């Protein structure tokens, strides 16, 4: 990369841009009451929200893997009519306001929803359940996994697959023994991104799944509601989410940027 010196105005505006992100983070760190941090961390409510968040975000990552990797494969390898439209629709949640996603989920999987009314007949109701939280989180987070894995599939060297096929491997064997190991880094990166997005999900969750401690009240909901009753506690929880996000970003740094160029 050719280095150069930034002109004064570009440098100033860039510094302003960077400060815009950094100052709120400093605010959070400075205002967190470290004295009560340990107590807030280990309080029953916090642990409950943390546990629920972990369970729900990991479940939705698992669901996203099961459905998302095949979807990414189809997008990368199969040319079917309307592919770009379907692909656009399934990545829409990345730019859609999550609360809109929550309303859409209600209209589809709610008790009177398109599919929800059928589910209700067999006694399955998703709103106000942890399963509903998983669904909301998957809806919002899965596109991150699909896009990352698709990029990995497009940039991989397909000659390995050809070689395996020449040697007589069946298509399923090629997929599981050659393709999957080759794109493992993308799958890992996609899963982590997806998990981080699921962990932070708020709008779709509160709209579709409601809010109840231990059942549907995930960390972001707890942070939001705690601000009204115990601001210091909400600062502590925010800091936890901040640290987790930072770890994800640092862990993914090289891989993510590499994929971004793909």
């Amino acid at each position, binding site marked *: 990369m050719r280095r150069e010196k930034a002109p004064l105005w570009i440098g100033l505006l860039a510094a302003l841009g960077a400060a815009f992100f950094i100052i709120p983070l400093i605010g959070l760190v400075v205002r967190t009451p470290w004295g009560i941090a340990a107590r807030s961390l280990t309080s029953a409510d916090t642990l409950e929200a943390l546990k629920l968040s972990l369970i729900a975000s990991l479940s939705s990552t698992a669901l996203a893997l099961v459905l998302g990797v095949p979807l990414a494969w189809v997008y990368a390898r199969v040319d079917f009519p309307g592919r770009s439209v379907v692909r656009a629709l399934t990545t829409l949640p990345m730019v859609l306001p999550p609360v809109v996603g929550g309303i859409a989920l209600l209209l589809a999987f709610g*008790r*009177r929803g398109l599919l929800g009314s059928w589910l209700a007949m067999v006694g399955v109701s998703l*709103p*106000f359940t942890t399963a509903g939280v998983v669904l909301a989180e998957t809806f919002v987070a899965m596109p991150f996994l699909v896009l990352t894995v698709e990029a990995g599939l497009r940039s991989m060297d397909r000659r390995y697959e050809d070689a395996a096929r020449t040697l007589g491997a069946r298509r399923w064997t090629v997929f599981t023994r050659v393709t999957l190991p080759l794109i493992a880094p993308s799958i890992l990166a996609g899963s982590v991104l997806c998990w981080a997005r699921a962990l932070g999900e708020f709008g779709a969750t509160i709209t579709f799944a*409601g*809010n*109840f401690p231990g059942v549907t*009240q995930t960390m972001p909901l707890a942070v939001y509601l705690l601000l*009204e009753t115990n*601001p210091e506690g909400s600062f502590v929880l925010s800091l936890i989410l901040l640290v987790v996000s930072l770890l994800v970003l640092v862990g993914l740094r090289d891989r993510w940027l590499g994929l971004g160029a793909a």
Partner: protein
Amino acid sequence: MRKLAVVLGLLALACGSSPASSAPPTIDVFAAASLTDAFKALGSSFHGANVRFNFAGTPTLLTQIEQGAQADVFASADTTNMDRLRADGFAVGDPKVFAHNQLEIVVAAGNPKGITFLSDLAKPGVLYISAGPTVPAGKYAAQALAKAGVTVHPRSLETDVKSVIAKIELGEADAGIVYTTDVRAAGTKVTGVPIPDADNVVATYPIVEVKGAKNSAAAAAFITFVLSAEGKAKLATFGFQ
């Protein structure tokens, strides 16, 4: 350099230092979600200022004010949150009570689950939701249930009373306890089931000017209007007492 001047010019415009003019002042009124319809009507018949409303669950509004939101008037759905505002030093003078409200059970239109008493909320197969415990409507609902000696676990604690109504309207929940005024405002989309006086709770709505109001005179005038006979009559048409 010329482009920069244009950018700075636009910035200056965006920051909008409005010169003194004869246009009516604007005040920001932070009001409990249950006041939504009534206050919108009050706002449009008040001529002392343009009134902008911020409706949300009372504790949400309180947090916004505490965290520095610019508010001129605060109308709470209970005295507890109002006391907190005063304790934090954000109230100007003494709050004045301007309305009362009562509770009602809200169910889907036509009451398909056949709910008649508070105790019916505990029946199996009835999905009951409530406003959260810090939201006045949620606190009052818990009090009413306690008075009736009914133990029922809400499946969700919503952030304000209007979200409870919305979930019932959508059919996602079977029953909730809300204000009689909310049931009235929702019209035919839901059905209200009265709660007997012995179990009912009277909600008290106080109003106060917020410290640091950008237009103190207009804020005071709006409060006077809400408390006036005309204001009370308007509130009464929405079911407030």
